[in-house]
């Protein structure tokens, strides 16, 4: 049940797209952790660059996207810089979108 719901949260997070790169935050590998506890959601995420000017909107966007799911009581988004994001976290699909062959 929890696994499926966490999967659902990740699906919701895929609707949050980095407007500069054009890739969703899950495939960019920005989501470090998603926890669900009786309707309370905890998301640990990062940005590609510390001080990224989009960090506020993307983090808030993540919160809003999850909040729209049915049965959600609260959402906490933790923006962390450690461990720093690395390009290895980008999914294969996203790599293709970025022009990798």
């Amino acid at each position, binding site marked *: 049940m929890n696994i499926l719901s966490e999967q659902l949260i990740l699906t919701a997070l895929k609707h949050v797209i980095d407007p500069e790169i054009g890739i969703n935050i899950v495939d960019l590998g920005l989501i470090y952790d998603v926890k669900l506890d009786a309707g309370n959601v905890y998301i640990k995420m990062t940005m590609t660059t510390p001080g990224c000017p989009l960090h*506020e909107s993307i983090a808030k966007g993540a919160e809003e996207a999850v909040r729209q799911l049915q049965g959600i009581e609260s959402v906490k988004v933790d923006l962390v810089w450690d461990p720093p994001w690395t390009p290895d976290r980008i999914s294969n699909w996203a790599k293709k979108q970025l022009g990798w062959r």
Partner: protein
Amino acid sequence: MSAPFQGSITTPYTPPFKVVRQYFIIATITFIFLNGLMLMSSRYISGFHFQPRLLSFAHMAVLGWATMIIRGAMTQLIPVILETSLYSVRLAKWGLWLYLAAVITIVSHFWFFAIKGGGMASAAGMAFLAVIIFVINVGLTMRKVKSINITIAHIIAAIVYLTVVAAIGLLLGINLSIPFIKGDHLHYLGLHATIGFVGWFSMIIMGVSYKLLPMFTLSYTYKTWPGWTAFGLINLGVLGIVVEFLTNRPLYSSVLIVTGMFMFSYQIILIMKGRMRKALDVGLRHAVFAYGYIPVAALLGGLITLSNINPEIKQRVILIYGFTVLFGCITLLIIGMMYKIVPFLVWFHKYSDKVGKEKVPMLKEMFSERIGNLQFWLLNIGVPDVMAGLFLQNQTVVAIGITIIFISSLLFGYNMFTVFTRK
């Protein structure tokens, strides 16, 4: 409703949209106006560089276009680069109007070569004051920085050079009104231009590039020693130029600067090689071409300072060099970065709180990429065309090139207008 996880998102250093927008709009209008004026007076873009219309064009380009954009962009980028908020938004806001008044006065005084009376001296004084306001604002913001990285080192050097350039400009402005400098005015003008181009512009361009290029291309696995080497060589070179100026002894400092510029190019190659984002959008294509013009400008600079070419040819090369730096390196990079920064600014202002709730546009959808591409190619046809025309001393070729650049500037202005007026 239970809420075990609260208070999550860190406070951002939100950029002051209205202030930055003013800088960008004024600079874009200046750029189009400059190109229109150059088109109407293209016959003046030849011959000896110390002539009223050329000095007017050059100051409109460096002050009204390039430095205006950089001042606005720094207000926007300080939170990104330094990860702290700007010391004073009010200084950025009011500094703009003083700076604009100074630019208009300087440019119009050069245009009419109105050196009698204190007009030129007051204009240079206003510009100096406006620069000091900017330097104080950036300097006091820097106080909050805990550690120095490559970008911050470049910005510190850049604002030091900007202060020196403005101070020499002030002395030259006073000297034109009330001659007091013993020796050749042009000798000081050379120092003013060199520190402006090699000190202020190259340091700010390089520093900001080291932050923005990896961010936009998703490049994180490159070595930074070429960048640091370039920083050391260029600063040593500028210092050498100052010593040469003071002692009148040739130290061949330009060799250090030219080598430094090539090290910068190598650093850019490393960043581009390591990028995850292979496809380049219109903004990044501009930037890449701008970086390509840097070694060209460096070689031209080396040719001017190190070789014993015929004085008449040298004069042509000086013009080509100045044009290449202003339109090849600086303008291309500024336009490229504006295609990245301006859509973001407007997007942030209009759509930031809609993310996750409704579909929001991508940044590249905020303007016409087709027009951007056309504008890019026109600019890259126009710039080499003018360079060739200046070398051949063919006014028709120069005029054709400037017409192409003017059309390109109109297309760029249209794209910026589309972004700024987006509903």
